């Protein structure tokens, strides 16, 4: 073993997503009885009662997405989004590699709820082990009678196909994901129409993140009300949070919504490992935002974080220590945007490249002075005019970065020495 396994911890009394990994709850515990009983309404109503929202970043209510899909004409599909692209996140990888059956059970329940006969999961190619485990799990689940025709003696047919991506961050966006599943360019398209009516192969499709799906068996088993009691009234339930290597105790933590970030950073993560000093925390990956250490009293909730300029996203926390120069982290942010822009819309296609070029100008004494001012229209057009959350997110992340590193960046602009 040349790579470390993922450390994971449940920081909640009743682990939900990690119910199998730390709570000893076996997968496929509810599926046989639910499908045999034809209890479609029960699944729908428990999910609705739970208040479960999409955990991939967009936070759309799951029950609503499912009922929208179910109201469209067959054939319908359910899709698991295993394209965990956010640098800093590895919770989905943990689930796919270590508890793939829980995701499959969640997908089967979703398929049952929306009336789909086929489920698909897109796993990014950077996660070869996750794809292998999921594929093996599908074979096992078929052998155990959980998947296939007339599942558990019911009239329900349901099977799952695992599709491996080929290197694209934007493929995690749902319309792009559907393109990737179909072997097409993983470019984003305008919504509406939403995948709930125009999804895979043009048919109604419910797309859910694998973490979302992993919560479903627990909710169906323990009831939506039990889930709704967890977390915060505005945002019930639990979330996997990933802490990065610079923390003293990096790993995946299942926590309840509403906990203060400081709790995650200082209590769970144990602060930074020696000799590093925390300079900023990147929340929510490249489309999230940067916070200063004194902003850590913000709760782990979408709204307050968005107001502070740091979208929750997939809830990764990457600690940036004080040795990392501001210009380097700014360049890193733009470089990511330029490399991963799908190219569908003008602001993102050209704007991310222009951003990267702006940072490079910090090395040119005669042009460095204008770099920060020149960021303004660029961030504006990306934020207002981008087609999808990617361009908006990259610009918001850069905006927060400019704020957090304001002093250093102004200094870099004055000297024109690159700031690194």
């Amino acid at each position, binding site marked *: 073993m040349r790579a470390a396994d993922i450390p994971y911890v449940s920081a909640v009394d009743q682990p939900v997503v990690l119910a199998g990994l730390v709570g000893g709850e076996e997968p496929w515990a509810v599926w046989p009885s639910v499908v045999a009983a034809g209890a479609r309404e029960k699944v729908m109503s428990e999910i609705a009662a739970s208040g479960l929202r999409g955990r991939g970043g967009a936070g759309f209510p799951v029950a609503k997405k499912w009922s929208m899909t179910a109201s469209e004409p067959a054939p319908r599909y359910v899709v698991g989004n295993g394209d965990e692209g956010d640098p800093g996140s590895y919770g989905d990888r943990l689930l796919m590699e270590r508890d793939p059956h829980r995701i499959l059970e969640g997908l089967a329940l979703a398929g049952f709820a929306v009336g789909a006969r086929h489920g698909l999961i897109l796993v990014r190619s950077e996660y070869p082990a996750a794809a292998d485990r999921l594929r093996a799990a599908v074979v096992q689940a078929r052998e155990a009678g959980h998947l296939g025709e007339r599942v558990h003696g019911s009239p329900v047919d349901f099977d799952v196909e695992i599709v491996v991506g080929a290197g694209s961050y934007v493929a995690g966006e749902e319309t792009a994901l559907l393109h990737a599943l179909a072997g097409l360019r993983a470019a984003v398209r305008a919504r509406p129409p939403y995948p709930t009516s125009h999804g895979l192969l043009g048919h109604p499709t419910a797309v859910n993140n694998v973490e979302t799906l992993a919560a479903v068996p627990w909710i169906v088993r323990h009831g939506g009300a039990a889930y709704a009691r967890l977390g915060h009234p505005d945002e019930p339930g639990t979330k996997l949070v990933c802490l990065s290597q610079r923390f003293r105790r990096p790993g995946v933590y299942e926590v309840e919504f509403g906990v203060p970030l400081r709790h995650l950073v200082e209590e769970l993560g144990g602060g930074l490992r020696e000799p590093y000093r925390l300079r900023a925390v990147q929340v929510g990956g490249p489309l999230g935002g940067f916070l200063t250490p004194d902003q850590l009293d913000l709760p782990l909730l979408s709204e307050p974080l968005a107001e502070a300029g740091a979208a929750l996203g997939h809830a990764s926390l990457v600690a940036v220590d004080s040795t990392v120069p501001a210009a380097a982290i700014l360049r890193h942010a733009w470089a990511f945007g330029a490399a991963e822009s799908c190219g569908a819309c003008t*602001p993102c*296609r050209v704007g991310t490249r222009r951003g990267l070029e702006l940072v490079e100008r910090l090395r040119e004494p005669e042009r460095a002075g204008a770099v920060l001012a020149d960021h303004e229209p660029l961030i504006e057009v990306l934020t207002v*005019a981008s087609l999808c959350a990617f361009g908006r997110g990259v610009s918001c992340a850069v905006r927060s970065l400019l704020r957090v590193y304001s002093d250093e960046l102004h200094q870099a602009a004055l000297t024109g020495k690159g700031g690194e």
Partner: protein
Amino acid sequence: MRLSVDTIGIEVAPGATVLDAVRAAGAVVPTLCYDERLTPQGSCRVCLVGVRGRAMPACTTPAADGMEIQTDDETARRSAQLALELLVSQLPARALDIPAERSELVRACRHFGLTGSRFDGATRNAGVDHSHPYVKLDRDLCIACNRCVRMCAEVQGTFALSLAGRGFDTVVVAGTGGPWVSSPCVACGGCVDTCPSGALSEPGLADPRPISRTTITTCGYCGVGCTLRVHTRDETVAAITPAHDAPVNRGHACIKGRFAHAFTRSRDRLTTPLIRDGGRDSPLRPASWQEALTFAATRLAAIRDRHGPDAIGMISSARATNEENYLAQKFARTVLGTNNIDNCSRLCHAPSAVGLAASFGHAGGTNSADDLDNTDCILVAGANPTEAHPVIGARIKQLVLRGARLIVIDPRRIDLAEMADVHVQARPGSNVAVFNGVARVLLDEGYANQDFLRTRASGLAELAALLADYPPDHAARLAGVTPETLVAAARLYGAARRPAIVYGLGITEHAHGTDGVRTLSNLAILKGAVGTPDCCGVLSMRGQNNVQGASDMGALPDMLPGYQRVTDAGVRARFNRTWRAEVPARPGLRILDMFASATAGRVRAMYVIGEDIAQTDPDSGNVRRALAACDLVINHDVFLSTTAEHADVVFPAVPFLEKDGTFVNFDRRIQRVRPALDPPGQARSDFDILHLLARAMGADLGCPTPADAMAECATLTPTFAGISHTRLDRDGPLHWPCRSPDQPGEGRLYLDSFATPDGRAALAARPYLPPGEQADTTFPYVLITGRRLVHYNSGSMSRRTPNHQLRPHEVLDLHPDDAARLGLADGDLVEVTSRRATVTYPVHLTDTIAPGQTFTTFNFPDTLTNTLTSDATDTETGCPEYKITAVSLSPVPHRADSRAAGR
């Protein structure tokens, strides 16, 4: 829905977008990735408007009741401008030097008052691809709007294009990304037409000099009848673009209509009359109009006066206008005094005229092409629309992509067969067996509409009795297909709610072509899919631009305009009154009968307008012998054709781009043809030539202008009574029948009753009969002739354009198994021998042709395919059996110096 745009209240239909609302309100929002022909994409982001304080892309945001739209919203406008500036910053400076009328990008910049961009940085540096003669790519001007890709996919259905790369480097590619000319692009021009930035352009528009005039006219290639905008500069065609509001082509076109116009200024245009006054072996020499007219008039009158009017045969042209055809048949009947007038529909769609008239009443398709929009199942039989009628082929592809079922009945695996639900790859000549087999299944399995049959049709009992002999396995055996295939086709057609039939020359050009049309029509009658509300009927794909019109105008030996019989004394009396002449009562000779009569010495003069009968008519050796036997051959043509080489007088004529008049397309739509160019030299329209020759013979044809000719035709022909140039210019195209100036034309026919004598659709009980020729031990292969995309008919127009680069010579399609048996590799030469002649072709190996069959065209005068073709003709109409000729194949031994392909 009611909403407001900049405080102006407006009403929009459900499903409208914010952009629709903005435009309905007369406000202006620039767009770049939007094209009304395509699904909105919302990717350029320059159409942002304010909706409840949020910046939203107008093109993809659904309008909603009560919505308040602000086109001057500060945030939206500013971001839209910034997006445009970003876009401009990626492009070289020359992007903004393109004339505004050819660049939506330049116009969008003007909207915002932009002359540059506040952003700067890397621009593209990917270079140009000028490999294709028509489609020119400048990658550095590409704005990745995806319009070309959507056009190629959503309108043309070729899917030749894709965006490639990602992010900043996203750019369009064709095929595998290699040279454009090597890609699957069929040069429909859709991508060029939609490109907003000049990245995709064409030679005439890459030239920045202004266009001096734009003329709206109707295409003179195939029978689809596309409305084209012809842009001229310095008295040449700079470019032709499809009219976006065109009723038939709806903003689309094909490689021929769109690009193949260079022939109009080809240096070998005939620009002066030619006469041969030293006998047939003497050369043609230029002559003045006066001299040539006198020469022709004197001799023609002499033959008429000496041998009688019926010693003259006249062939009118399906490429000429209605007015010219009207004048030609009037010339034959009044100046010459004969009904010996025919047109080339004899050689292609005479069985349609006769068959459709017998089944339904009128000699044309039963429905408007617009009805295809509502069909859920298309049966394509004996037609290859994606090559021969590309705009309709493209439309069919789109209908299929959007869910319509597709049945293809064709011996070849044509492009459409690739996407068909069922391909009945029936043996050539087995159409009647196939249709009878399908009819039997429709009846046996309860798909027939009994109510319709009871009240609207006749002949069921006779048909049912005949079909006893056509159980599916027997019909399938005759057709060489499996019974399952036949049954599957029947069930698809039978189960459809609004099935459409589209057929072509593969049905008509047979020894039993009229039976083919009748038995195919049976299917629509059995289903009640014709003459009923929402029906899609039967559409016949016409080969040349005005095949329908030439017959409609009475260039037929037995019919006056509007298919009024010359044998009907009442009809003749009306014409006689108006024409102040005596229309002969006896029907005249059909084309092939004229040749036979000429060879026999009964016809002494042939007057051929436009047709190159010596190249395009079947068994053309026989045609040449007939011409040689005549005392006088008069010919109008644009170029010196194979026929002109046998003529005594050749008048220099003009092509459609220099004509004034009307054409009738395949769905009976009468459309205006307007001159975009002046004729070169002394060339004249067929209309003028006929007038001049009549005058030289001391006669006056009346109706001095094309508009007058149409007006006269309208007074004599009930089905055209409502047609006039004035009305067409005002209201646009009209379908016939159009019985009065205040009636719209009838696109969908027979809703109340069929135009047959008893008002019922007539089912036809026709047995399968074998074709005129069949493969045997001496001639073991069947040669099928047909059309290819880039060339047109004799090739006289298309070969004189850069289309020639795309296909410089003819080939013979051969199945690889047959090739292996004969020891032939792709490109090797093979001698094709029929009972009449031998022609050499390079072979093209393809499994789209069945073993034992071969395919080629007659587009090239140096591979005279029609010297091979069969002399068998349709028993009812005399239409030749172009589709089946028994041939033998013999490889030409390899010689290093024998690469002069096809000679």
